[in-house]
């Protein structure tokens, strides 16, 4: 399965969400997107954005200074 990487480090919320939203708009349903962020707020905001817009959060984790969200693009389009 294809996983697209998005570097949203150093951006403050809501910019990581906006970057995810704009990237997801160009992706096919079922594609996975892994967003690397440094604002811990991203771990709350990106999953909230996913719930609202019908995408699935596969995993959230932290690695060093990174807060990482892995999501799968949902059927009903963008954000």
């Amino acid at each position, binding site marked *: 399965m294809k996983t697209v990487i998005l570097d949203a480090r150093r951006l403050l*919320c809501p910019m990581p969400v*906006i970057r995810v939203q704009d990237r997801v708009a160009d992706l096919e349903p079922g594609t996975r997107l892994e967003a690397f962020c440094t604002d811990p707020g991203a771990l*709350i905001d990106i999953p909230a954005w996913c719930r609202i817009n019908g995408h699935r959060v596969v995993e959230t984790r932290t690695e060093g200074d990174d807060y990482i969200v892995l999501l799968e693009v949902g059927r009903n389009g963008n954000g």
Partner: protein
Amino acid sequence: MTRQPKAVALVSGGLDSLLAVKVVQDQGVHVEGINFFTGFCVEGHTHAIRKKEKAKPKRNNALWVAEQLGIKLHILDIIEEYKEVVFNPKHGYGANLNPCLDCKVFMVRKAHEWITRNGFDFIVTGEVVGQRPMSQRRDTMPVVSRESGADDLLLRPLSARNLPETIPEREGWVDRERLYGFSGRSRKPQMELAHHFGFEDYAQPAGGCCFLTDANYSSKLADLWQFRGSKSYEIDDIMLLKVGRHLRPRPNFKVIIAREEGEGRFLQGYRKQYVNLETLSHPGPLALIDGEASEEDIQLAARLVARYSKGRGDDRVELQVSGLDGVSHRLAVVPLSAAEVPESWYL
């Protein structure tokens, strides 16, 4: 119209837009939200920076509102376009550098463009007549409708019965009788309506939806414009105005000093863009220099940073100075005394 009417709502994350959407949703309208990110918004990130606010939930209120309502939310990055609104507001500024009326016109215009592009029927906002001194007055609310180009496609469900009938009402997409006639500064009617709908835990921002209504923030922005010689900013500038202690010892540079660990971590991200100082001999804050600083200026900045370190009472504090080329050198200085830091340096 046989199909379900569709509206887009300006969702700030506050109570009024939450209620406005709920009112039209209850009348069978399909609603989606738009939230604008200008760079000045008072949202989760300031909480993310400051460690002492860690206990607070770091939610984004606009997303939270959308989730409560079960609507989609489109967050639009308008940082670049918004600059013109901040630099040259036709209707001027409010109490601080907040161009509220122009800002509202701009946002409703963007929403109007959005509905045209996306095949939606009308626009909803949470505005209430008389609620805000600049953009929500009886005489300025028609200005928003007119200058945005939305005209009577703009519905304010909380105040509609105080305002002329709009297209959504005339067309029967919503029933005017089931809209509200709130007016004035009191928040009581909104709170009662929130209670009626069962909304709890909503955000109630004190001043306004953005940092431009904050006197302290506005004076730092005015300082930036004054010393750059023109009204200009980049996103990093306006983000940094939200963080740290800002002191301007000389016209050509200012020093941004982290106030605690969270801010220090945030400033770390800017180390490649700004000359920066870090204490080596004692625990102390990370600081950035904004402007063109000479060797002498850097020496002064170092003494200032030393003052905010644990070495402030010692005769000698050692720091590391890192330049834009990534090259670092060590510097030993005598910390400034309290008397050597005049009040006028603080922005």
